[in-house]
């Protein structure tokens, strides 16, 4: 019993780690890309289309596709992180773009008219005013990633999917639940925590 408990904790930690690393990288890439798209509308459409296509690839297939690719692929954690990262990009990019584009034109015009530079407008006006929407995107990406990360076990990256795959092959629903319940709890916790942050930022932007 003690062994099972420590295995659950260990795999939960692995699972959280996978999601955390993937989401962190996805934020580091997706937010700047979303901002860039508001500055260069012409590149916006192809980028969104690319992110959309990735989102439509079935997750198991995406993990499979990545295995034979040199450098980024192979068996193990880094491949899983890359797959999760690709999945997380769309909601983050899209919400960053929508959030920044959604800043009231009058506010932006006043900012320009008063002599704020482009970077001052970005950092002092556009980013603070779109944080709520950006966080909503990160929240959606995180919840999806927690679910998709269960498949990482199929390519040897560990995580709570180990229990689910094992339970499925053993036809033992208790083992499946040992993976599924913690995964659901992680998703709920992430959703709850992020939506609290989101509300905090939304409250600030009321106008």
């Amino acid at each position, binding site marked *: 019993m003690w062994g099972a408990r420590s295995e659950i904790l260990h795999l939960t930690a692995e699972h959280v780690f996978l999601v955390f690393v993937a989401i962190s990288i996805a934020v580091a890439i997706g937010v700047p890309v979303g901002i860039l798209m508001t500055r260069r509308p012409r590149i916006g459409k192809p980028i969104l289309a690319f992110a959309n296509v990735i989102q439509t690839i079935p997750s198991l297939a995406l993990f499979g596709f990545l295995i034979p690719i040199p450098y980024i692929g192979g068996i193990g954690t880094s491949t899983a992180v890359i797959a999760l990262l690709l999945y997380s990009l769309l909601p983050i990019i899209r919400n960053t773009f929508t959030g920044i584009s959604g800043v*009231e034109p*009058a*506010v*932006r*015009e*006043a*900012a*320009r*008219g*008063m*002599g*704020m*530079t482009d970077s*001052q407008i970005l950092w002092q*006006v556009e980013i*603070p*005013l779109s944080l709520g929407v950006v966080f909503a995107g990160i929240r959606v990406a995180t919840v999806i990633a927690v679910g998709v990360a269960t498949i990482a076990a199929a390519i040897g990256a560990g995580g709570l999917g180990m229990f689910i795959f094992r339970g499925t092959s053993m036809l033992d629903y208790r083992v499946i639940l040992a993976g599924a319940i913690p995964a659901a709890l992680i998703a709920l916790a992430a959703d709850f925590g992020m939506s609290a942050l989101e509300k905090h930022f939304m409250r*600030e*932007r*009321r*106008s």
Partner: protein
Amino acid sequence: MHRMVSVKVQLEFRNVQYAVSSGRKLVNGISFQILQGEMLVLLGRSGSGKTTLLKLVNRLLEPTAGEVLVSGRNTHSWDPIQLRRHIGYVIQEVGLFPHFNVARNIGLVPSLEAWPPQKISARIQEMLRLVGLDPDIYGRRYPHELSGGQRQRVGVARALAADPPVLLLDEPFGALDPITRAELQREFRELHRRLGKTMIFVTHDIREAFLLGTRIGLMQEGRLVAIVTPDEFLTLDHDEARAFAGCLQ
């Protein structure tokens, strides 16, 4: 240069044109001068080019021909950021930053200009009193906690905060109810007299133009058809002028 002329030209348009990429000219052949301390009211129908003309002053738009001079210098030779901080700007939608409280909104340009914090907070208090708002009550409020009239007062205070010699106002009272509008118009006229700033005020309301303007510039289809004192306006031999004057009865 002109020792005998005691009042200097603050703003000048020389044969200014602004065309969009399709070639359509939004304003064309605009030439006029505004002396320091004047309030020029640009009057015209929607789409007559008033707002376009205003934005050519602070380089939110750049003329496609001709030149605009602010404080004697072509706007082209100004750094646009410096130019805009030298010119107050008030728009109808106010455009207060919803995530800044009133004090921080008003202190925006002074803080961009890196004034010392104490000077900024003293200035915020002064500006709030100037526009008739109690600094202790309103300084910490957020824009959504204000009425439309109070928001526009804050908008004017924000535009004046860095003490710019020129103020551009684009239908600042257009969205207010008639009573609040009349109140703000009267106070604003006083403010202009007291501060002696050079102002361009855009409106389509001839009553407002008569109440506030030291001169009225009448715009029609991108052209400045007349630039006259309010008294002269009533005697203008021009259809558009008569159409507007007709609204006075």
